[in-house]
């Protein structure tokens, strides 16, 4: 089961999907495009625990994390 993790005021909201299910994959890709289109940063973890920023949907990613654009304060 893959997951898209969206940071929010509750800590996070997780959307799980089966990467072998075409419909679920399409929905996950649409969510990815919608969030990155709104300025969210998407990041995935590699097997070695390194974090990478991604700009296109990776169907093989086990976990993709989204957070809104950064601001200074």
């Amino acid at each position: 089961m893959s997951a898209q993790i969206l940071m929010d005021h509750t800590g996070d909201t997780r959307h799980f999907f089966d990467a072998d299910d075409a419909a679920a994959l399409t929905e996950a890709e649409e969510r990815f495009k919608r969030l990155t289109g709104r300025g969210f940063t998407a990041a995935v973890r590699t097997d070695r625990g390194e974090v990478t920023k991604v700009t296109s949907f990776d169907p093989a990613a086990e976990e993709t994390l989204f957070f809104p654009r950064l601001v200074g304060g």
Partner: protein
Amino acid sequence: MFLVRQIRRIRFRYRKYCGPNNPEARGQRLLRDWLSTSQRKQFDTNKYFDVIGCNTGKTYRIYYDRVMNVCELDEAGRPKMGWCFFPKGYFVAGDVMLAQKIALETFEADALKVAERFPPSARTGQDQGRATRDARAGRP
């Protein structure tokens, strides 16, 4: 009936904000999941962890807080400059720290472009104040 409703309401709020699944705890769990082994160890011990900027190779220390919690370190490991930036909106400390870690490790230059600088002494002052309050309250 009124009393039962009140008790249910209090129980619901307690679970939401004070239980093991409250936003603060969820944020910390997510952060710990995404930290490297050495960062996790450092965070568990000190409530902060260090990251290396992807563009400059500089070391930044991210403290457990939501604002004014990133310090650039000098070669001796002393705070040199404070950087204040965070994801837009309300987020718990764990989430803010994770966003800051990812930003510095993957798009450092862009993250610092939006950040406000602050003297690191402001951060040190906060830490000292917290340590004094903890000592007075008998907390370790």
